[in-house]
């Protein structure tokens, strides 16, 4: 494998990229493009405004709140208050699979529906509260849901509709339906990230902790930051079940409100996507005393490692033994699968620019196939996502983030119950468990690799020209742009309608899919033969990694 191959120096291309920008922009972007040098601390500028006119991958606060966090929950009516578009675009476009099967053929599942107040100009002029109220009433009358979430889009905040007051009023009126609002207007913050935070806050305020029924299982956990894209959560559920671990709730893939309401009864919170959900983990620890640590179920070794950490956390030999059994049963076929694709994948280059944790986690999967990630970045990260939570105290809150509510949480007078004593936690940390910690993406990247936060089309274009990667990972907007350059692109938001990629089975799927993409014949036939000069070998670029 290509572990110790030296990466090409990206400084030149960085300069070339910046040279095109107006000077102010260049200065700003320079701080978001960092050539990794692991020997030193490096600040990766992030969670700052997108520069207008720069073609960005980013979406908005609403997308992060409704689209990402609440979208995957099946038994809530997510009612979008605003003109029709925002609700339409978030309708079924994120592949969060959900299985209402357990609740029978009549089990609640509103995921396939799109609800909107479809605001019209008169609502903009005269206010939309009345229409919102009516819409909530109609939703309640038709569907009798147990919960309705109201999501504000851009104009709502501007015209001053108070979605929270309306929600409160309707909740009281209904009695049996939990109605609550989100002030997640698209212009809030600088990216989806603001929406995650708002979603976390409202879930914490309005849902988590409502049902104090204690779980029956022995090892009760929550899985945070797992959205069940392509069935990832199903695979993880399978593994947890094999291990005898009981998942109280997943935030928020294949989830239901019922689970959220009981999530505070868990023993442990596992955080997958640090960015989108760390707030909930933090708040649950403060309020209920549930510790959290970061896990990664992307990759065979990563999955095994994460499972082992759970075993260590519980310090229960029975659980530890069972986890080892599961790993012994499952991991070898994963290793074999990785080996099987190696002749196609070894030494190949990957780049990945995606939101959430994926740009980090998938580097491990690629490494298992002998592939090197030459450049990566997040779409809506904060500095801690790159540099680790150690930098949290040093992050300056700017104007764009200041208005995102920061909940003041205190230990619950009744329900606070530290799962582990301080001493126990310290002992576990000595043994390698890292509570409330995330070391960030940079920690796992090679020297000379290039981190780019909030990459722009221009930057991606030039990086591809420079690196000529074998595979590029990003989202739907980038997919066909990159492919037109002759480079296959793997969508890491939708998995290109493949997956699952999490857990043991997921890793195997991923290997196979990447092998397929790297061996697809058409990439060798892009040029019309009558134009062929014979000189354009698409692979000459790979030389410098050899």
């Amino acid at each position, binding site marked *: 494998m290509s572990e110790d191959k030296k990466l090409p120096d990206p400084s030149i291309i960085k300069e070339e990229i910046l040279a095109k920008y107006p000077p102010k922009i260049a200065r700003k972007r320079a701080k978001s493009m960092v050539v990794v040098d692991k020997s030193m601390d490096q600040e990766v500028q992030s969670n700052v405004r*997108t*520069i*207008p006119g720069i073609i960005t991958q980013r979406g*908005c606060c609403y997308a992060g709140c409704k689209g990402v966090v609440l979208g995957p929950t099946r038994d809530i009516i997510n009612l979008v208050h605003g003109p029709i578009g925002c609700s339409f675009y978030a309708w079924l476009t994120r592949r969060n699979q959900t299985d209402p099967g357990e609740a029978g053929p009549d089990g609640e599942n509103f995921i396939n*529906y799109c609800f909107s107040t479809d605001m019209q100009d008169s609502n903009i002029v005269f206010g939309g509260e009345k229409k919102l109220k009516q819409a909530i009433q*109609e939703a309640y009358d038709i569907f009798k849901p147990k919960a309705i979430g109201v999501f504000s889009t*851009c104009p709502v905040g501007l*015209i001053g509709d108070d979605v929270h007051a309306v929600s409160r009023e309707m909740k009281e009126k209904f009695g049996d339906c939990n109605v609550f609002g989100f002030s997640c207007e698209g*212009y809030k913050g600088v990216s989806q990230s603001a929406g995650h935070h708002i979603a976390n806050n409202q879930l914490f305020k309005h849902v988590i902790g409502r049902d104090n029924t204690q779980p029956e299982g022995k090892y009760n956990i929550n899985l945070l930051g797992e959205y069940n894209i392509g069935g990832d959560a199903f695979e993880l559920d399978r593994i947890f079940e094999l291990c005898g671990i009981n998942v109280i709730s997943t935030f928020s893939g294949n989830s239901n409100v019922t689970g959220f309401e009981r999530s505070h009864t868990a023993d442990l919170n596992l955080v997958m996507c640090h960015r989108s959900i760390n707030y909930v983990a933090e708040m649950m620890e403060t309020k209920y005393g549930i510790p959290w640590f970061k896990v990664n179920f992307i990759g065979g070794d990563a999955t095994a490692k994460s499972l082992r950490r759970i075993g260590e956390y519980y310090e229960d030999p029975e659980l530890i033994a069972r986890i080892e059994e599961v790993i012994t049963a499952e991991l070898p076929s994963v290793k074999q699968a990785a080996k099987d694709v190696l002749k196609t994948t070894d030494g190949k280059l990957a780049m990945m620019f995606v939101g959430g944790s994926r740009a980090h986690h998938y580097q491990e999967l690629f490494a298992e196939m002998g592939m090197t990630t030459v450049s990566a970045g997040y779409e809506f990260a904060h500095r801690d996502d790159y540099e680790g939570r150690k930098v949290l105290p040093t992050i300056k809150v700017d104007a764009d983030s200041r208005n995102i509510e920061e909940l003041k949480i205190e230990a619950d007078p009744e329900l606070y119950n530290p799962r582990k004593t301080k001493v126990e936690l310290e002992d576990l940390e000595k043994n390698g468990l890292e509570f409330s910690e995330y070391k960030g993406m940079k920690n796992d990247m090679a020297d000379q690799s290039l981190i780019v936060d909030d990459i722009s089309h221009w930057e991606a274009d030039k990086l591809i020209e420079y690196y000529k990667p074998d595979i590029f990972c990003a989202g739907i907007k980038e997919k066909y742009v990159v492919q037109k350059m002759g480079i296959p692109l793997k969508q890491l938001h939708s998995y290109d309608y493949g997956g699952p990629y999490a857990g043991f089975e997921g890793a195997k799927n991923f290997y196979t899919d990447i092998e397929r993409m790297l061996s697809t014949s058409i990439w060798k036939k892009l040029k019309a033969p009558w134009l062929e000069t014979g000189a354009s070998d698409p692979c000459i670029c790979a030389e410098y990694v050899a």
Partner: protein
Amino acid sequence: MLLRHTPKEVKERKALTINPAKTCQPVGAMYAALGVHGCLPHSHGSQGCCSYHRSVLTRHYKDPIMAGTSAFTEGSSVFGGQANLMQALTNMFTIYNPDLVAVHTTCLSETIGDDLNQICSKAIEDGKVPAGKKVIYCNTPSYIGSHVTGFSNMCTGIVKGLVEHTGVAKDQVNILPGWVEPSDMREIKRIAKDMGAKIVLYPDTSDVVDSPQTGEYKMYPDGGATVEDIASSGDSIKTLACGAFASEDAAKLLDSSFKVPYEVLDIPVGLSASDRFITALSEAARVTVPAAFVAERGRLVDVIADMTQYLHGKKVAIFGDPDQLIPMVEFLLDLDMIPTHVISGTPGKKFTKKIQELCAEKAPNVQVQNGAQADMFLLHQWIKNEPVDLLLGNTYGKYIARDEDIPFVRYGFPILDRIGHSYFPTVGYTGGIRLLELMLGAIMDRQDRDADDTKVELVM
């Protein structure tokens, strides 16, 4: 069941839209802007709008859809987006070098009242727009009309921003194709060429959103109506505006500003609308229709005549955009099919009236509704109350089709789960045969599936 909570009983709704049969204006403006060569669309609003619009167009076309955003923050929302747009224009012309930028607003910038005219004028004054480059714009408040309205508004924006009047008449006809696929625009050009009619067609997304894979990425693909051609449309003989909802406003503007008279036609989908289109084009361009078109038409008529038994009396539910539904409903009637439920989220009184007029004789019981709460939830409920043999509409129709086990043909926007629409036209006579192939295929596949072993037919 995917839509397990949809009850058969229809309750009147006044405020809640469920499963819309429309989306918002800006995405239409973005699509229209892509129909100008060298144009970079720009969304003046929050980042999310641009991202969503690019995503849905990308999923529909499986092709790059590039556009800029003003990336509003809370500050811009309070103080106005002028600074953002000015900066965006500078950056776009500097970094991405388009021939022109086409700005549209969003509900955000509309609500705060940004004045695009003023901002763009200032940008030009301030030298933010390089020599030879252009900025055009239109207002697309998301809370009025639908995506179709946005398309129409950008068409008007194109006319306003690019058309010139030299006073020297040009022997050409303007065709505003309306919201159709690149394949359709390509086909209209082919038809005009084969008829010997000189035309200027815009917007023209062919060779833009169906661009070739050559291993070489072009940010501005070879297609799109050129600024020069568009400019010349002020000197044309006449404008044929296909689709009242998407094209009439722009045609009116060409008339009022440049004295180019216009005629509003249906998008040439199906036999009758294609007949009118060919006739109108031959009259406008003063060319006789070549014999090849008699043959082309005759092939469509032949398929209809030969296959009528599989179509006759079949009930159809259809949803989508008015300009596409109107000629399609007429086509269904020409096929002796029975338009049974017709839904469009796009408002406009003309629509219901038009559909009812068309159906008066042959399908007087047609249920039709558009505008507020005319959504796919209602359509689904109608279908539960009166089942149909075929469903036509965009990809979201798949969920109804599966639940109710109805043969389904994808028609309209967006189509997210199949390819073909961008390559094979549905306009014109050949497009009619394609529609027939698709509908017959769906109906016959169903017959094949449902037939007892005893009743399977070799010949159909």
